[in-house]
């Protein structure tokens, strides 16, 4: 098992390499560079040109790439052109936020999605089922950010249940104070994101349950005298959960891209928001690292999916 994981990790290296080249070239293909936004009478284009030269932006792309890659291999992802901070530090600040938010969203998403799928499957064809199907299709069809805005207005400002931006209150103190404040800040974006993202899990669970409950082993369990509730929990649900378990890795990486919108609107400084601003400001070091990072996350996500799958489904054992 561990050997396989290691092998998979090794396999990731060429992929990451290819990804990094693509990402780098893309960043270069975008019009302008981080310095072209510095247009103010107080700045001197000659000085900007000088800095551009110093930053090596006038070198051929592959030289820039090799330099960047070489540094990256040493854990040095460069300094953000815009934020003037080492990329690794900015990421360090932001990743934590995003990961916590994603984690919370995932948990809520799974609870709600599974619950919806169960309700729909148990009431197949009835109004509950139809309603949930419509709900899930609509949340899939309607751009989420409009709803995010509404959520902020209603729960943030009108009802004032939740803070409307940031990750933590400046006044929060003490371990629990800060923790509570962080959670308080996360609830609104997490719940909204989760409620709008249930469609995949809902569909998996619903069809999963419908498929599993007619399986022969369920009949066997009944014949053993196992009660319906136990059958549902221990047999049907567990088996119906398999595909979602396999999907967990992807869900997390999917959330990261969803975070681009949510974080921007909720004013939650995570890497999603960083991504948007880095694009707008052509902050290459930031952007390339971010994308590389999300690429790695995606790869880890798929590896994780496989491991989870192998772990929960004895029929698939990676070895």
């Amino acid at each position: 098992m561990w050997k396989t994981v290691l092998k998979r990790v090794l396999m990731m290296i060429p992929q990451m390499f290819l990804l990094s080249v693509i990402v780098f070239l893309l960043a270069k293909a975008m019009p302008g560079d981080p310095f072209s936004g510095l247009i103010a009478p107080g700045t001197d284009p000659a000085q900007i040109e000088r800095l551009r030269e110093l930053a090596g932006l006038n070198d051929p792309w592959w030289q820039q790439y090799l330099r960047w890659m070489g540094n990256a291999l040493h854990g040095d992802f460069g300094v953000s052109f815009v934020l003037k901070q080492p990329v690794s530090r900015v990421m360090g600040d932001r990743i934590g936020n995003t990961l916590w938010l994603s984690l919370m969203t995932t948990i809520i998403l799974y609870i709600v999605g599974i619950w919806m799928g169960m309700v729909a499957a148990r009431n197949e064809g009835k109004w509950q089922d139809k309603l949930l199907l419509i709900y899930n299709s609509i949340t899939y069809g309607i751009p989420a950010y409009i709803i995010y805005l509404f959520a902020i207005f209603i729960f943030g400002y009108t009802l004032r249940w939740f803070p409307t931006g940031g990750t933590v209150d400046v006044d929060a103190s003490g371990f629990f104070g800060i923790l509570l404040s962080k959670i308080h800040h996360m609830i609104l974006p997490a719940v909204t994101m989760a409620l709008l993202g249930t469609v995949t899990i809902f569909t998996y669970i619903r069809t999963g349950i419908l498929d599993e409950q007619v399986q022969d082993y369920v009949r066997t369990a009944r014949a053993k005298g196992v009660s319906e509730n136990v059958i549902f929990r221990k047999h049907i649900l567990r088996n119906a959960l398999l595909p979602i378990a396999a999907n967990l890795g992807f869900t997390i990486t999917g959330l990261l891209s969803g975070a681009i919108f949510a974080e921007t609107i909720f004013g939650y400084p995570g890497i999603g928001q960083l991504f948007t601003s880095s694009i707008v400001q052509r902050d290459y070091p930031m952007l390339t690292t971010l994308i590389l990072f999300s690429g790695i996350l995606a790869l880890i996500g798929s590896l994780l999916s496989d491991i989870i799958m192998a772990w929960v489904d004895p029929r698939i054992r990676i070895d």
Partner: protein
Amino acid sequence: SSSSSSDKGTDKKDSKDEKVGDFNVSYANPDKAIEGGDLTYGYIAETPFIGQWLSPLSTDAIDSKVQSPAFAPVFAIDSSFTIQNGKDKGGLADIEFDKDKKTALVTLHDGVKWSDGQAITARDLYYPYEIIANDKAKSTRWTDSLANIEGLEDYHNNKTDKISGLTFPDGEDGKKLLIQFKENKPGFTQSGNGYFLETIAPYHYLKDVPFEKLVSDEKTTTKPLVAGPFKPVKIVPGESIRYEVNENYSGPKPKLKSVTVKTVTPAKAVAALKAQEFDILDGTTNDLYPEVKKLTSKGYEILGQQDLYVSLLYYNVGHYDKEKSVNVSDRETPVQDPKVRQALSYALNTDQINETLNNGLNTRAIGTIPPVFKDYASKGDGFPLDLDKANKLLDEAGWKLDKDAKGKDGKTNDASDKGYRVKDGKTLSLTFMARSGQATSEPIAQSYINQWKQIGVDVSLYNNKLTDFNSWGDIVQSSGKTKENQSWDITQGAWSLSSEPSQQDLFSASAPFNFGHFTSDELTKDLNDIDSEKAMDPEYRKKAFQKYQDYLQETAFVTPLSFKIVWTPVNKRVQNFTLDYGENELWAKLAVTSDKPSDK
């Protein structure tokens, strides 16, 4: 002979009652201030703040706003940005110029200290020059203006490691820094002139940090030393800062106990204000105004002030030659003709746009110098909407209306049944590189195109779309005759101006930011005159500005579009708040008159 900075600064009494447009500049709160109190200051921003506290390295406008409670100006200024000497004025130092020796002597006031209790020294005045000029620190703030200080350019080019023009008359730990200039400049007495720096940096605290690490060191990012009335006690990166009183501040004792500064995105700003989340909300945009105005009965007062801002239309008449660092007006284009440019200018409905899209917060610019510079500001009427005049100008220029003329899109004029204008068989077709970025960007661009069509000019958008800021920056700044920079005829620009009104940086023959590349001997002469030694006489300078202004009106080498009013909602419990540029000790003076924000 030495002359101290002008003392004629505007009277405080006057500025208190001053009005800009319909707004008061200051808010007079008649109630009695309470002891201490917490104040929340919001700043509207799309992005989190960066958090660079070392001002030679900081370029972020958000940073300077969210750090303002911890900031004390090196030199006090009056409402017209003229430097004011005297400890009572609120600065950390005085500056004396010696015209004959071409020097300036900066003298720190007694007892000025960093927030760690260490005295601010001459070395701390010198240190920012090193940082800005040293390549390793990668500051973007180096400009040619600084080369006017003896030896600084050599230092910048790594020829020396001492700046010969900066000396310490009473030693590094003393209070004085002597600056040796190559030339005297009329702008010396204006703050923001760029010929010398107006910042300090805590050398004793940072001396062990190498230049290349300065930008990212925690001593400049999360654990800074400050000299202002408040010091940061807790920083949530990018989001908020909590300030408490800086006991080592040398000015008047701050009235508030603490200040919290937070950023808020534009989409949420109004709602936050409705929820009384902020006492002061800065960084407002015009589109928020109608909603915020409704809050004047819900606890807020809106103050306003002229902004250091002007927006323009550029006409592309040439290119920038990078080798020679000079603009060349050599492009073959209808907009070479001043009549065409004037006609295009008179066709604009700027007043209407400002009234509607900008909610009356922008005013049509009658020149390029905004009204804050009371003495130098443009006079006259600029280019008000006058379609008849525009049509006449085009007729004179030889462009005749033709009903059947086809535009670039192969279609006839759908906005005016008179058709497009034609000369020598060619339609007057122009490309407009309009910038994206604001909610109003698109209607404004379309509105302009619409107006131009009314006078028979076929204008289409560059690449059929609005151009984002970075792409725009790339195109307008490219030098030489590249295909890209030759493919547009008209573009928009907007400047946040320095508090020194010189126009050299914007329009001189050598200015890289002269995006239209318009040059003429007359313009060069006018611009030089404004910054000549003679112009150290304010009266002379006033006339020089007027002459430049007349030339602009005649040639329309650019079309001034708008000036702007900055407006700030302030909760009615706040005392002593003002937008007066001459207030140097705002944060120390701020107080509140109740525990909770008012909602009436």
